[in-house]
């Protein structure tokens, strides 16, 4: 049931062990029966980031202590990153205040929002952060950031057609910026160029507040025929669960390394890298393979593997369908055979997708994977909800040992939700009192000249060509506007000339002074940038980059920013269709400026009518420019 990229090396089809899990305890593996029999065993839940009450809740849900694998899964799914536990209560406003829209085919909660733009076509777009990894390993961090957002777009049934990259670095003349910036730019370019996605815009901002915590946000735009929209639901008991793409290795499992069994030696810590390495070539093949599967209607459900790897993909697909799932974990193709169950479940190896396939289509799916040279392996099957109407359970075995038996919804939907304390930062009044009017102004021509020169020479206003030249803007042949324009414009239908305009903007300094209005300003800027091309803005995405939510001051900034964006969207009459929250952007106790980055998407019925920044002779003879 596995295809190998090269037929010559293909393994003989594995037989799915149909027997039930064994009741014996396997040495070294923490099984469900073992967990039930050893309720007092101490578990490192605190090291995994779970609070006492969260751990108690897990025990309550399961009626026993969790196994190692289950503990790893809960710790990941209930983390801030996956559960949005601090932001959820605020983000609701995006839905509550959203104007009614008949264009929205998928909204918040899906991998990415999908907006219909013509009778036949829809577009999907989303911006996401990859800040921390990009500080540790700038090239790979940025590269895998692009790779991750592209898979989100792909999972909706869309062909990815363009990327953008809002970036923020520390001071331009700081030695560490010389390490981080070139690496990040090369990584964004290396991955996007190799995938064949034109880069149509972004931001490069320098501010000392990002010195130890650069912001690497990546946006991807995709296009799909309306009837190709994909769902993540693992519907249909008996359907096969297929893992497609790269092999699974120990990428990005630093977090769960405390679960290493005692058999691991001293050096084992070293074996658990928190950095992921991307393979854009594999992702390109994965894209083509997925699109071929969609067009042939071979998949029932699909989900990308992102931050929480298999754990997230398995639980989300099952939970959203209310079904259960039976998974044979040893069937996951591994890069390192010594991986343990909890490591396989937590791995963040890139370039993987989870498919739900009806049994009669399995062969065709494996053939398509083989044609494109990617692995595809049947690792499990969808099981029925329980007879009493309760959702099914996620049951995972490892070499016949039962290692996971959980209600999938408990990981996805029943995670903790916090209304964290908020307080206006104490220094805000002082900051706001330091008004622009009180600043010294150039009062004579020389001072004015000096000010102008200083502005022209400042990194934030300088020409960005050094960055943007490293990105392919031409590939796919549909780029109508890109750098240095206000918005990127992409033709999405060669026949009709239909196209979309996209802009991403943010200003951490404004948001620091007033997060509510600062966020509205970011929205307004992106909205204007799209509108001046001649496009009609129709949808919003956002990436909210903030410090620690456990800091009441940061939490207040966050709440204000969300309120500002929701109100702004209400006033402009366009919905937020998706986004991403990135907390804990700080060095020690010092948080970055609150940095909401807002992306606006607009539609152009005919891209030939776009208005570029410069003067352009029109066929009609009149020249026009909008400001």
């Amino acid at each position, binding site marked *: 049931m596995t295809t190998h990229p090269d037929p*010559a090396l293909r393994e003989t089809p594995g037989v799915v062990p149909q027997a039930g899990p064994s009741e014996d305890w396997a040495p070294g593996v923490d099984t469900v029966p073992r967990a039930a029999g050893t309720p007092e065993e101490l578990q490192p839940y605190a090291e995994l980031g779970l609070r006492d009450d969260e751990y108690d809740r897990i025990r309550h849900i399961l009626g026993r202590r969790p196994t190692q694998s289950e503990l790893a899964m809960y710790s990941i799914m209930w983390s801030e990153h996956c559960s949005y536990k601090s932001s959820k209560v605020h983000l609701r406003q995006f839905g509550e205040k959203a104007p009614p829209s008949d264009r929205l085919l998928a909204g918040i909660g899906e991998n990415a929002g999908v907006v219909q733009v013509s009778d036949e076509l829809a577009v999907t777009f989303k911006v996401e952060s990859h800040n921390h990894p990009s500080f540790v390993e700038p090239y790979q961090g940025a590269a895998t950031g692009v790779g991750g957002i592209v898979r989100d777009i792909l999972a909706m049934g869309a062909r990815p057609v363009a990327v953008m990259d809002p970036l923020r670095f520390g001071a331009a003349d700081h030695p560490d910026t010389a390490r981080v910036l070139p690496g990040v730019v090369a990584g964004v370019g290396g991955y996007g160029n190799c995938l064949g996605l034109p880069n149509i815009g972004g931001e490069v901002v320098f501010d000392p507040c990002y010195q130890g915590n650069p912001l690497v946000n990546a946006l991807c735009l995709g296009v799909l025929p309306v009837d190709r929209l994909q769902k993540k639901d693992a519907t249909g008991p008996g359907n096969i669960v297929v893992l497609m793409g*790269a092999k699974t290795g120990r*990428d990005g499992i630093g977090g769960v390394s405390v679960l290493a069994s005692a058999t691991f030696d001293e050096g084992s810590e070293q074996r658990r890298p928190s950095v992921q*390495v991307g393979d854009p*070539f*594999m992702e390109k093949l994965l894209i083509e393979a997925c699109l071929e599967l969609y067009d042939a209607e071979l998949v029932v459900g699909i989900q990308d593997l992102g931050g929480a790897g298999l754990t997230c993909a398995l639980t989300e697909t099952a939970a959203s369908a209310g079904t259960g799932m039976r998974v044979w974990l040893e069937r996951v193709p591994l890069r390192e055979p010594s991986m343990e169950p909890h490591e396989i479940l937590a791995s963040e190896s890139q370039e993987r997708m989870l498919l739900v396939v009806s049994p009669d289509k399995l062969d065709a799916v494996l053939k398509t994977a083989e044609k494109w040279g990617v692995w595809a392996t049947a690792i499990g099957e969808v099981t029925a909800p329980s007879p009493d109407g309760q959702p099914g359970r996620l049951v995972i075995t490892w070499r016949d040992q039962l290692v996971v038996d959980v209600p999938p919804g408990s990981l996805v939907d029943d995670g903790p939700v916090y209304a964290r304390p908020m307080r206006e930062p104490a220094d805000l009044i002082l900051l706001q009192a330091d008004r622009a009017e009180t600043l010294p102004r150039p009062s004579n021509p020389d001072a004015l000249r000096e000010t102008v020169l200083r502005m022209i020479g400042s990194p934030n206003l300088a020409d960005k060509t050094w960055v943007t030249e490293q990105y392919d803007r031409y590939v796919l042949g549909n780029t109508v506007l890109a750098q240095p324009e206000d918005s990127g414009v992409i033709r999405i239908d060669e026949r009709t000339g239909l196209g979309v305009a996209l802009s991403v903007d943010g200003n951490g300094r404004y948001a620091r002074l007033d997060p509510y209005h600062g966020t509205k300003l970011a929205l307004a800027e992106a909205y204007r940038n799209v509108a001046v091309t001649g496009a009609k803005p129709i949808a919003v995405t956002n990436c909210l980059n903030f410090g620690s939510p456990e800091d009441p001051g940061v939490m207040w900034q966050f709440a204000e920013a969300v309120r500002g964006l929701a109100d702004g969207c209400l006033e402009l009459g366009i919905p937020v269709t998706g986004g991403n929250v990135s907390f804990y952007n700080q060095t020690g106790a010092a948080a970055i400026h609150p940095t909401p980055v807002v992306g606006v998407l607009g539609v152009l019925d005919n891209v030939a009518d776009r208005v570029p920044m410069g003067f352009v002779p029109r066929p009609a003879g009149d020249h026009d420019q909008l400001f």
Partner: protein
Amino acid sequence: MPRVVVDVMLKPEILDPQGQAVANALPRLGVSDVASVRIGRRIEIEFTGEPDLDRAREIADKLLANPVIEDFTVHLVEADETADARS
């Protein structure tokens, strides 16, 4: 003049897409007995004076390798083992 060679390889647990692509291509060349290929960098450093292993190690650590994903080793070679004189 002897040189210092720094070999930088991805840590074994880190994905090496390059090595993998080469390994996957080998069957088409009729090669089927290769289990794995890993690709790293070989850096040859020539000093103005005596070759200095410690100095080379320092350069490798600071500049040539990223310890988060790579390991390196440093050793001396005689000039005639290096690129200048190959079969």
